[in-house]
């Protein structure tokens, strides 16, 4: 650094003007905040893995003739969390997950509705919500006929009524 006037250097350094001090302070704090923010982002990113080892989302569910008109099949609820509903002319699959806070509703055949035990949301057989706090209808999952004539379901693709998805040909099967 300086070899001729160390004393001057020191006195220069100690006499920082107010404006200079404030700008150095802000640069210091900004750098500190940016570094901390950078570390926090890295930690945050670390918590989201690149590859997910989740169980397969698609499965087969028998032939369409197995399902009675105007009934709800609960056969796949325990394993796959899906109800298969047949109305007069269509078969579709509803995800057994309440749109309020994700509890599993129950199908009450006598009262002809899905009722959620957590906060009392109720859905008609079509999946439309009509009572309780649920903000929107249940979701349908992708349904198609496989080559062997059995019903193929894929939970990775869902269809929401409020977005108009239920008109999508993959959201139901005609019978």
């Amino acid at each position: 650094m300086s070899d001729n006037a160390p004393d001057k250097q020191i006195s220069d350094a100690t006499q920082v003007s107010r404006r200079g001090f404030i700008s150095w302070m802000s640069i210091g704090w900004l750098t500190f905040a940016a570094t901390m923010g950078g570390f926090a982002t890295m930690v945050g990113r670390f918590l989201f893995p690149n590859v997910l080892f989740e169980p397969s989302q698609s499965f087969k569910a028998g032939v369409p003739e197995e399902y009675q008109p105007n009934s709800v099949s609960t056969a796949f609820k325990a394993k796959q969390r899906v109800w298969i509903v047949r109305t007069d002319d269509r078969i579709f699959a509803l995800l057994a997950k309440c749109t309020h806070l994700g509890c599993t509703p129950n199908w009450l055949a006598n009262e002809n509705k899905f009722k959620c035990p957590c906060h009392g949301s109720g859905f008609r057989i079509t999946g439309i919500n009509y009572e309780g706090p649920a903000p929107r209808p249940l979701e349908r999952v992708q349904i198609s006929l496989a080559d062997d004539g059995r019903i193929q379901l894929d939970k990775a693709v869902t269809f929401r009524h409020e977005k108009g998805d239920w008109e999508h040909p993959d959201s139901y099967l005609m019978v």
Partner: protein
Amino acid sequence: MRESIQHFINTLSQPTISFLILFFLFFFIFPPNAWFHRINRKLGLEALWTVKGGIAIFASMTALLIFGGFDANFRSIILKPDNVPIILLLFGSIFFLWLSMHQAMQNDRRLRGDEPPEEWVKESDRKVLVWPDLVYIELIAMVLCMVLLLVWSIVLKAPLEEPADPSATPNPSKAPWYFLALQEMLVYFDPWLAGVVFPTLIIVGLMAIPYMDTDRSTSGFYSYEKRRTFISLFLFGWLVLWVYMIIVGTFLRGPGWNFFGPFERWDLHKVVALNNVNVSEIVYVKMLGQTLPDGILIREGPGILLILVYFLVIPPLLAKTSLKGFFNRMGSVKYSFFIFFCLTALSLPLKMLSRWFLNLKYFIATPWFNI
């Protein structure tokens, strides 16, 4: 005789009734301003905080508990291991409420007579040595606490239910008891409000208290009269919006999240018709006799207007009228924050009341969010 009392208690404890009683009685018991304070004194409600009043409160609470204990249904709820802490909380919070109010009343009397509060000690003999005067108290407290914990652990087994099963939701299924006030809010507000925005505001609001209430002259001793606005509002939040909600959520919410009186059998098939409507439907369909307009802004206009009035018109109005002195003392910034937190807290009881009496579902309902 017993059945008619039970029936009476069942009716009384319905949230529509019990909450209304609590809501209106509360500010007379804990007056927030001079007007309420006068009525409080006239009714002699300060007697609650005397020793006799305390004994009366506890005798009636214990009597109620013992009376309830004869009923099998009631007994099974209060003796559920995870509900025992709530009994502890109930008695604890009432006891310490009484203790603090008792001392506050004593100090208020001393302050009125120009005496210093009881906690104040002459400068000359102010200090005591930590060893041994404090450490032996700490030792006794720790030993008693450990004894309580050990006895509790030996007598009551920690609950363990069936193994986890993602396909079968138990009915009812409840959050841990200390979150039940939040779960109760979920009945009235959408999850993003009840689960995220309100908890955040509770935390921020609590942290903001000392930055709004900065009067140092009432720091460090129990008192009520000089701090009545803040104490009254804080107690309203703590006792009514938190402890009461926990008790409702634990003891009175049954299958289907339906409401059941303490002596009512939990009927799995109880059906309560819930046909809730939005503000837009109330205004356009019921009041104006029209169909709902198509444009979303026009349709939700009344609800948006209501919320804007609530948060933007009411605060200046209050500042000009009933809270004038308060506004002048606090300044506009502190006042704005203060009134915002108060109105947000009050929005919960208001939404509850409008749900019960107007069947209101949402003020604003859009495909993206509902309020």
